């Protein structure tokens, strides 16, 4: 039944549920007890499994209830309505399970993200501070060694030191990409400027950064804005064919807005919106922003550049109250 219903259209799905729902609700109102309430939960579970939404379910409830109200004596209506409300609550309970499940998953995802950032920070530290230290020592030792060698040996050592330089450069670049210490040490704005410089080195973009912030933002928010800008500039550099980009960030009325705009080729926003923005590297941005209850807007037009704006509340609305209370 569930498989058939999944394939059916919303209208059909509604009808599959509406009929048993009507029967069960009438049975409940005729003789309310725990059995009829259990029946309500079973119907809700089926409805939820077939992909019906809460609003569709509520609409079915209202449509079922209307004729019942009409046929109910006026003085019995309050009791009848209270009972039908109880019945609806039972029907909604399975939807509540999925909803809370998703919310819990979102919280887990947030923790996972924080954990990954933390690990990236540790790895970056080891690479940046410890590995480069060992490389520097190797350099010195080789230089000492070279002094004691005849000229052919010296040039050999020189070649090895050249390779060490390359390793060091790679390692530093990797450490920066993993976690810029600049973000932790100096904050978001210098970190965004650093991203802008990188973009100009890598892709020849000219990137300006404007910030309207009076204070440091919460660490998690700074990290998300940094990563979003990093991802957006990478998109610009790789795909937009742009020569210029602007990054701006501002805090206003408890909300942070961050925009990355370019003068590149743009794309057909309507076409991409249908595909959920996947395939453009924007999925990561959406997920990070959704973590903090924020939204992503994309304004793009073929030939007129692209602007991506994220909007994130400084204090996220949904905190995991259950763990927070413990």
């Amino acid at each position, binding site marked *: 039944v569930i498989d058939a219903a999944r394939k059916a259209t919303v209208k059909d799905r509604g009808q599959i549920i509406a009929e048993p729902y009507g029967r069960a609700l009438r049975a409940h109102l005729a003789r309310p007890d*725990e059995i009829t*309430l*259990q029946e309500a*939960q079973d119907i809700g579970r089926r409805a939820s499994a077939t992909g019906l939404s809460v609003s569709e379910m509520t609409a079915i409830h209202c449509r079922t209830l209307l004729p019942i109200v009409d046929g109910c004596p006026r003085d019995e209506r309050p009791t009848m309505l209270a009972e039908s409300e*109880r019945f609806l609550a039972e029907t909604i*309970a399975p939807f*509540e*399970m*999925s909803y809370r499940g998703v919310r*819990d998953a979102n919280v887990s995802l947030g923790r996972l993200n924080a954990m990954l950032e933390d690990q990236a920070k540790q790895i970056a530290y080891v690479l940046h501070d410890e590995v480069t230290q060992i490389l520097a020592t190797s350099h010195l030792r080789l230089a000492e060694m070279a002094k004691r060698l005849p000229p052919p040996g010296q040039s050999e050592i020189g070649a090895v030191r050249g390779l060490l330089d390359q390793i060091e450069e790679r390692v530093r670049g990797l450490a920066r990409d993993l976690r810029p210490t600049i973000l932790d040490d100096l904050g978001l704005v210098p970190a965004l400027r650093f991203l802008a410089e990188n973009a100009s080195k890598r892709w020849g973009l000219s990137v300006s950064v404007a910030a309207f912030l009076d204070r440091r933002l919460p660490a998690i928010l700074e990290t998300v804005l940094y990563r979003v800008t990093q991802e957006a500039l990478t998109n610009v550099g790789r795909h937009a064919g742009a020569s210029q980009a602007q990054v701006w960030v501002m805090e206003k009325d408890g909300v942070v807005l961050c925009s990355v705009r370019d003068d590149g080729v743009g794309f057909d926003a309507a076409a991409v919106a249908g595909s959920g923005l996947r395939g453009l590297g924007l999925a990561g941005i959406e997920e990070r922003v959704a973590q903090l209850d924020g939204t992503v807007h994309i304004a793009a037009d073929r030939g007129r550049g692209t602007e991506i704006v994220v909007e994130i509340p400084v204090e996220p609305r949904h905190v995991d109250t259950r763990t927070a209370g413990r």
Partner: protein
Amino acid sequence: MTHAISVPVQTPTDIVTARQHGRALASMAGFSSTEATIIAAAISEVARNIVEYATSGEVAIGLTDDGLRTGVHVVARDQGPGMPDLPARTPRLVALAPGLDEFGMGLHGARALMDEFDLDSNPGRGTTVTMTKWLQ
């Protein structure tokens, strides 16, 4: 913790009895009608799990407190086949993966509805679900 009642669970009728006691106890403890419904729904899920997968077991429902709050405490126990792969140990993200069977859905649903949820299960030694909903 005081277990006001223990309901033997074997048939669908027992599921109804278990949820009825849960609802009554929750209302008595001061939970709103909506919250009592949520608790009844969670009890329903763990009891259904017993009927469908273990054939028999029991659901004990009582009140508890942690010094600050009152809560409804539920222990569902069976001597069924048990599970090698515990939903409680799988990440919540996996739990939401498409194709999740009814079994997983039920216990994950109960976990989502309650404040605390613990699952102990071993193949051959049955399953025990312990869960609590606190009065906020």
